[in-house]
């Protein structure tokens, strides 16, 4: 396992600037999640590290060695794709062994047997080793795909939305599994997703991408509690943070403050400005109040069994507001 470093890396596809001046360090042993919407440059970043794309500018180092002139095979990375790519006519055992039989690795047979058994154990599929790939469920197939990366001992694992095609329950199980694998193997992982839950729950570090730029890098807690901009603040948290004009509440705003960010859980009830409840959503474990304060929509949380209904008015006041300037940058 090794540290991966991108310095001033840029990549364009014709007129589209996919990655712009990116500086990113994936520390040895870290689980870094790159988060952003479609088109933010996540997958291109991953492919640049894997060697599937060549950077227009900048340098990429893996374990201190400059790799941007090397082929994918020379770089010693293992990639897991969104869609599981297994050989349907081979058994699980053969699928797992396949990467080790590549002429470059040239692994001895007893080593292959040992490695495959070990990975099957980690992925909880030892009973399925002699099944054909086509006899597996979707979740098992994706685990085998991940396993095909794990049998190798690469400098870094690169994963491109590996859970996005699975159903919610399975995704929840595999999230925990990936975290456990990361801890057990002390592996270095770079994982790309647009799913904020995956980023929050698995990452040691989250990198937030916006139109090709890395706009913030930190622990999930830092990103959630201390976002650098309105863009970052809106990427984490469900329901989403409320972004409101500063003058809406009677609070002391720092000079230059243009908008105030209020997480739904940071709105106190029973004091402050009068707002009208427009809709009450009972989600079971939480109840969301949609309301209007003047001309502005906002969402706050209430006790699950609140008797409040649409049309009622309620006084609300901010708690721990975040302040942003006119460009969206955080100022306090």
């Amino acid at each position, binding site marked *: 396992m090794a540290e991966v470093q991108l310095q001033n890396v840029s990549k364009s596809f014709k007129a589209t600037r996919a990655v712009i001046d990116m500086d990113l360090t994936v520390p040895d042993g870290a689980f870094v999640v790159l988060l952003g919407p479609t088109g933010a440059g996540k997958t291109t970043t991953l492919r640049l590290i894997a060697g599937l794309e060549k950077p227009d500018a900048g340098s990429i180092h893996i374990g201190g060695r400059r790799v941007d002139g090397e082929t994918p095979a020379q770089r010693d990375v293992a990639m897991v794709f969104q869609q599981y790519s297994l050989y349907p006519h081979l058994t699980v055992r053969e699928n797992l062994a396949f990467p080790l039989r590549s002429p470059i690795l040239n692994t001895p047979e007893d080593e292959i047997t040992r490695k495959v058994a070990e990975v099957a154990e980690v992925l909880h599929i030892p009973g399925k080793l002699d099944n054909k790939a086509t006899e597996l469920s979707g979740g098992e197939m994706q685990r085998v795909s991940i396993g095909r990366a794990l049998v190798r001992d690469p400098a870094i694992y690169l994963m491109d939305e590996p859970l996005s095609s699975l159903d919610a329950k399975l995704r929840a199980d595999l999230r925990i599994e990936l975290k456990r694998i990361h801890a057990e193997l002390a592996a270095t992982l770079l994982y790309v997703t647009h799913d904020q839950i995956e980023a929050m729950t698995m990452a040691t570090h989250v990198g937030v991408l916006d139109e090709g730029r890395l706009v913030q890098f930190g622990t999930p807690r830092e990103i959630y509690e201390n976002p650098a901009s309105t863009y970052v603040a809106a990427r984490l948290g469900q329901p989403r943070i409320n972004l409101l004009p500063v003058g809406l509440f009677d609070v002391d705003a720092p000079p230059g403050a243009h908008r105030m960010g209020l997480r739904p859980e940071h709105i106190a009830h029973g004091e402050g400005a009068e707002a009208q409840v427009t*809709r009450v959503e009972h989600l079971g474990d939480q109840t969301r109040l949609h309301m209007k304060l003047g001309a502005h929509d906002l969402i706050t949380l209430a006790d699950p*069994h609140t008797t409040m209904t649409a049309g009622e008015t309620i006084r609300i006041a901010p708690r721990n507001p975040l302040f942003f300037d006119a460009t969206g940058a955080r100022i306090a």
Partner: protein
Amino acid sequence: MAEIIVKNVRKEFGDFVAVRESSFTIEDGEFFMLLGPSGCGKTTTLRMIAGLELPTSGEIYLDGEEIGQRPPSERDIAFVFQMFALYPHMNVYKNLSYPLVSQGMPRAQVRAKVDEVATILGIKDILKKPVGGLSGGDRQRVALGRAIVREPKAFMMDEPLGALDAEFREHMAEELRALHDRMGATTVYVTHDQLEAMQMGDKIVVMNNAVVEQFGTPQDIYDWPATMFVADFIGSPSMNFLSFSGQVGAGADHVDLNGTQMGVPALRGGASGDLVFGVRPEHIRLDDDSAYRGAVRATEYLGTTQILTLDTPNGEIKARIASDQPARVGETVGLGFNAQTITLFDRATGQALLSQGNERVLGHG
């Protein structure tokens, strides 16, 4: 405006029973969700209400009139499909006006009606555009508009947001619900997404294996599930099931869980054998004084809350607690359960045992 009553409706396709005797009432103006996994019979039920399938037996009432065997054209119901079916060679205005023109409505009236609907949907500025170049959201709005212009008694929607990505789906769900609140038309909506059902619905029918498992408001179904299927299907993470065997009598207000006495809402009837102690993740707390222990296997940070996965003597459970409460993987913690929220189930039948807690919701059969 319409009230819809579905009474003992059954549908067979050859030997296959798609829907077994199902009954529920959709009140006038409700946003009503048919929720369940694929193959549960929810779409067939919707199609029977719309008249696209005819029930094998049972009755369907629309505003008091039995319409179960009538063709769709005699029901005055609009159907919005999963894939928005628009006429690709017509512009937005023509797509919207077509249902009215084909009814023979005078041109001036058509124009006024289309204008009104376009205003409601916020698509007035794209009326002259061809539908081919529209964004997914606008296509969806046009498809809805086509259903709305006719002013039907009720709308049927079959996973209309299924094809959209998560962020946009949430936005469209809010828009649909707001539209319903403005128009107040009875809407029946099929989905397999429990969060969508909870978020949008006034009432929910949960179906599984061709059977209606439960029917009620989102909060009631969440708090007091009638069956283990419903308890598991609704909520994320879903309800924890701690298996135990024993005997509980009518009036009992605690059970023995691996040697620890756990409070439950007073039971209305007794049960014995393989039982299940059901507790939602947010009703579990860390409690140093509790003799009931669990080993923390995983923690997942979610902002203000975190999810703990714990191994207990009665199986793996998930707890939702505040993220500022310390919890480390590997450590063993005491666990407390909020007694007033517990549901006990009979493992063999999967049915909830009637208690002081759930009798208001489940009491009348």
